[in-house]
């Protein structure tokens, strides 16, 4: 048996993993990335003359399960959920699905130090809306993390890799019940946990306390201690953005007064002017 040289070995490793798209309408362009139990390639749809993304799933997974998941994901029509065009099976038995090719960056690469807080919160809002929508359809993401969120070239946000529980997923974003620690099966509250972790990931080092408390509440170890759903989490984030008190961060009377004063400073200034004028006139009459 001949021993393979290093160059031959590297070549074989590369070519054996490439999907054979013979019999499909796609022409392979190249690998885009890896994740979620499969590899994503860019390809060209020869019929519609457009570029697509093709996700080829590991051969060890049962194709029927993946087809079912693709059908579920395809039913989620939402601006932040990448539409699936087609599913199929490659000649080598691996399942694949073709979907919209998102031109953009993964969230972990899009994030940089100069990104404003409002933009970071906007990203959370967009991603959260996708999750909230999916939950109304009974679909749980189960593997939300920055690598599964794409930011398009116009700032649009897409949540990817639905319904496939990550095998080697980042522990930081996985709820305790997903690792079988806290007991109970994962449900939409596991996504709430992941949203909290995502928020924590996006927050800058010196983030406002209310936002850190929102993330902490979402990441509570017990599912029933978290927000009841993603909409409640998003509402709290919105309350922060509107200058209101957040549910996750109870305030003292002094903090409430300070918040009222900040939100109504113009009115308080005018009322103070009215009182000042009255006092001025009162003492003027005394002179």
């Amino acid at each position, binding site marked *: 048996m001949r021993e393979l040289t290093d160059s031959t070995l590297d070549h074989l490793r590369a070519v054996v993993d490439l999907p054979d798209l013979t019999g499909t309408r796609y022409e392979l362009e190249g690998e885009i990335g890896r994740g979620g139990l499969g590899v994503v390639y860019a390809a060209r749809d020869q019929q519609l003359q457009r570029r697509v993304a093709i996700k080829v799933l590991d051969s060890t997974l049962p194709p029927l399960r993946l087809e079912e998941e693709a059908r579920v994901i395809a039913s989620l029509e939402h601006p932040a959920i990448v539409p699936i065009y087609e599913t199929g099976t490659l000649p080598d038995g691996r399942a694949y699905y073709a979907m919209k090719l998102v031109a953009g960056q993964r969230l972990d690469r899009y994030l940089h130090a100069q990104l404003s807080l409002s933009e970071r919160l906007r990203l959370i809002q967009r991603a959260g809306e996708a999750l909230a929508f999916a939950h109304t359809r009974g679909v749980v993401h189960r593997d939300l993390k920055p690598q599964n969120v794409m930011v398009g070239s116009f700032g649009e946000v897409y949540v990817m890799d639905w319904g496939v529980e990550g095998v080697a997923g980042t522990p930081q974003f996985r709820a305790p019940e997903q690792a079988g620690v806290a007991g109970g099966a994962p449900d939409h509250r596991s996504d709430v946990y992941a949203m909290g972790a995502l928020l924590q990931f996006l927050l800058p080092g010196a983030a406002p306390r209310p936002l850190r408390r929102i993330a902490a509440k979402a990441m509570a170890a017990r599912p029933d201690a978290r927000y009841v759903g993603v909409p409640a989490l998003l509402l709290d984030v919105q309350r922060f953005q509107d200058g209101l008190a957040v549910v996750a961060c109870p305030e003292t009377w002094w903090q409430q007064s300070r918040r009222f004063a900040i939100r109504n400073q*113009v*009115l308080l200034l*005018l*009322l103070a*002017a*009215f009182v000042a*004028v*009255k006092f001025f006139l009162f003492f003027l*009459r005394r002179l």
Partner: protein
Amino acid sequence: MNKIVTGLVFGAILGLVDGATAWFTPEVRPAIVTILMGSTVKGMVVGLLSGWFARKVNSVTWGVAFGAVIGLFFAYLIAMQPQPSGNHYYLEIMLPGFVVGAIVGFLTQRAGGPSQQTA
């Protein structure tokens, strides 16, 4: 509650408060009821006009300015009337009237339904 009703309500309240402070001027205490009624009506008129303005223009700055000017004007009309003692109280009436008008102008901009002006 639309902006005109907002203006009427807050104008009435602030006008009443403004008129009540006349009690600290002993010379005019006998006419306090008349002053209260007049100040309240003045406040309601200013509030009505500020509310109308807020429906047309969505700007806190312009709303405050409009309310202040209207408040100053109607306060002047009242100050022009001599008191029973024969004195005029231009400063005591116009200066608070100016500030009350500004407050009513601000409140009609921030509270009440949306204005008709689009961005």
